[in-house]
């Protein structure tokens, strides 16, 4: 079993994430899509580490991707909650002003 199946899976994950990010109008759903995209990237890192016989650096990168994804989710969701308190909506199109 080579690297191809992993790349296929990760590209499907990536495309799903992109679809979610584009098609959804709910901000939290968009964050779900971002998580999928980041997962696809981390999966690629680990897969290339295994099959290209590199050293363990890919795993470290995957770790940092997970870390950044968690931080991004924390801050993003805080913004969503604040936005909801201001606008009573988490519809992406209601975010029309930088200041309210």
């Amino acid at each position, binding site marked *: 079993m080579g690297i191809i199946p992993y790349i296929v899976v990760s590209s499907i994950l990536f495309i*799903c994430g992109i679809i979610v990010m584009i098609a959804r109008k709910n901000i939290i759903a968009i964050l779900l899509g971002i998580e*999928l995209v980041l997962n696809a990237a981390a999966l690629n890192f680990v897969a290339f580490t295994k099959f290209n016989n590199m050293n363990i650096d890919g*795993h470290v990168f995957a770790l940092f991707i997970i870390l950044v*994804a*968690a931080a991004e989710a924390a801050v993003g*969701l805080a913004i969503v909650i604040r936005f909801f308190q201001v606008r*009573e909506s988490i519809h992406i199109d209601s975010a029309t002003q930088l200041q309210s």
Partner: protein
Amino acid sequence: MNMFLMIIFTLSAFLAVGGALSVAFAKNLIHACVYLLFSLIGVAGLYLTLGAEFVAATQLVVYVGGVVVLLLFAIMLTGGSNLHHVTSRFGLESTPLMGNLRTYIMGIVTALLLIAVLCNVLQGSISASAVVESKFSSTVEQIGVKLVTDHILAFEISSVLLLGALVGAAIIARPYRSSETEN
């Protein structure tokens, strides 16, 4: 053992891809979140088939135990309707940089410490090649060695990043009592 690998890969890949597709096409946001949970578990299974057990366990701990719970909480916090009008300016009355003397001292001390450590380590006291690699056989130990030798800058900076995320998100999400909005 190639057959086990195939079976586990197939199951995990189906879980991951099916979960991702379901996220894309779910009608209910909570359901989408649960499908995302499945997708993440599937990706963890894929990491296992790649021999990256530490990354898989991190995926479980951080995503399943952390991010998904955070997402569910956020959905519950925003899912209801008819909250009365709140008009505040994102609650940011003063910029978070405007600290007092103690915060500056703490910041400077931290920065100096960071610089000292980095100078100490980067000036070649250890590098990954200097460590006898054969003594660190498992992936966890190899990752640990990498984190304290080659990637020590990223390791330390990541703590600062997380500190920033914590402080920033706490400032943004911190609730104010309604007395503020009445004023």
